[in-house]
């Protein structure tokens, strides 16, 4: 972050804009987050530690963070592919497909959860074909993965698309005229230009997936130690008026998520500043 305005800034109003941004961020993000920490601190360290490290909670961390990471990875790969198809090819119904990408954003998450469960249940449209293969989706960690992949789909597509659109086609021609084959052109020239955007998209998808609640609880079955996600545990504790327990878990999630996001941001900053 940079607290001093560049001397020859084209647009005036740096102080005002910066002040407003900080105020806004405090109001929307920092104050609620601080409240969580204060609440937790009030309960005392030993109780915090006990709640935050109980086996059932630890299992839920593993599921939430592990499956979210897998979902983000899947979205990274397929989102890149989808963005590529949407930018580089012309086909009938392209606008339809383009609009479809945003659907997971627009759909209420509970609706998404219920429809995914219906489709992937053992008698559902897709579930009935997977069952003979021995693959169970609904009420397993795989189901959680499906739901988290679904809700994270738009992020990578929407972050990569504009970058891909701006990519200079002549650079690919240059690579070709220098003797590079298609694969070399992709991984030496195109991919290095796309990956920061893809990483941003995957990070957003990950962040969203970690906090996702509505769409997962239907398809996961919520079996303790197996398919219980951390946000569900928090809600359960809240329903039992165990505010201290709920905030304890929330703090762990917060710290873990924030560290991961910070790490990824640093990685991106580093890669961006290599080239300038």
């Amino acid at each position, binding site marked *: 972050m940079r607290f001093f305005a560049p001397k020859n800034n084209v647009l005036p109003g740096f102080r005002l804009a910066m002040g407003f941004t900080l105020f806004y961020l405090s109001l929307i993000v920092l104050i609620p987050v601080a409240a969580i920490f204060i609440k937790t601190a009030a309960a005392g360290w030993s109780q915090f530690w006990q709640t935050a490290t109980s086996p059932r909670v630890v299992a839920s961390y593993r599921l939430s963070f592990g499956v979210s990471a897998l979902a983000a990875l899947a979205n990274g790969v397929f989102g890149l592919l989808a963005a590529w198809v949407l930018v580089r090819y012309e086909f009938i119904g392209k606008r339809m497909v383009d609009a479809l990408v945003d659907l997971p954003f627009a759909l209420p998450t509970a609706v998404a959860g219920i429809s995914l469960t219906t489709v992937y249940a053992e008698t559902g449209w897709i579930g009935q074909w997977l069952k003979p293969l021995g693959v169970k989706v609904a009420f397993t960690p795989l189901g959680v993965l499906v739901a988290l992949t679904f809700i994270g789909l738009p992020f990578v597509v929407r972050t990569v698309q504009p970058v891909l659109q701006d990519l*200079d086609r*002549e*650079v690919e*021609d*240059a*690579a*070709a*005229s*220098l*003797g*590079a*084959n298609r694969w*070399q052109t992709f991984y*030496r*020239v195109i991919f*290095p*230009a796309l990956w920061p955007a893809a990483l941003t998209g995957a990070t957003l998808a990950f962040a969203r997936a970690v906090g996702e609640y509505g769409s997962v609880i239907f398809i996961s079955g919520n079996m303790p130690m197996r398919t219980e996600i951390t946000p569900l545990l928090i809600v359960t504790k809240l329903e039992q008026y165990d505010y201290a327990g709920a905030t304890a878990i929330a703090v762990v999630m917060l710290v873990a998520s924030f560290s991961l996001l910070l790490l990824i941001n640093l990685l991106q900053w580093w890669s961006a500043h*290599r*080239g*300038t």
Partner: protein
Amino acid sequence: MSIEVRDVHKTFGTFAALKGVSLKIQSGELMALLGPSGSGKTTLLRIIAGLETPDDGSGDILFHGENVAALRAAARHVGFVFQHYALFRHMTVFENIAFGLRVRPRRNRPSNDAIRGKVASLLKLVQLENFAGRYPSQLSGGQRQRVALARALAVEPRVLLLDEPFGSLDAKVRKELRAWIRRLHDEIHITSVFVTHDQDEALEVADRVAVMNEGAIEQIGTPEEVYDQPASAFVYQFLGNVNIFEGRIRNGRLRIGCLELPVSSPESADNQPARAYVRPHDIELARIVAGEGVRRGTVQHIHTAGPIVRVGVRTFDGSQTIEVEIAREKHQELDLRVGNVVYYRMRHSQIFVEDYSI
């Protein structure tokens, strides 16, 4: 390595960008493609490089007599310098130049040491020894241009194609790079085609010039040929400033008002409209009437900045203002002022009837 382009057509949708272009470039020659914006220069260059394919069933591209139409760009061994450089932004200057060597199949990829040596010698050639570690965004336009050139040369191409290599540079750097590229060409003797829409550049640097207009080649020749014997009114106009006089053919002479100019071929029909093209430096000015074919006019403006003096002369009947270029000494000797009466005479003119030279 000679290049031959035979009757190439290229259509984008319904727009014909190239309408049957044929061109022969000798081995070791430096050929300029000169033409206004949108005339199809880049398209032709891209077709030669294999980055674009001619319309189905039209035309052939031959390298050294061998048809390369079926070869992809990567297999043609052509060095291409793009109009907007197209450097790899996330690679250093060094890696940009080394790219063509690194993507070679393993069996003929040079060792790392060999690559380092090669890149170092190219950096020296383009005078950028101290810039190996920089990224393209940290270079000036002229430096990027030279990196693009070094990158193209690294693969030891059989042919070098340059698309407006000096396009976005300022006049002084252009001039330097122009001379530099000519020297470079004389050193390494690689068959080269370079695109430009700047006639001075083409005339100064190239062995031969091909003038393009609306997807077709109007004339090919040495700089002297195209300048002194333009094949069409378009070429005449494109290669420099020009004054145009409209008139009609009468008894084998072109009559412009009461001025008559001789027409070299007599078979042109009587009363046919025609135009005389006269370069500003082919008009003589005098304060007194002397000799034949002298017309009267008044001085309308004088621009004295630069090596030559440009004088605008309003014709006697007031129908047009002609541009005249005279030497500084001549200007001092004549002592012209705006409003003075002057007499002008065309030293040399070329007459075109409906765009054809006669």
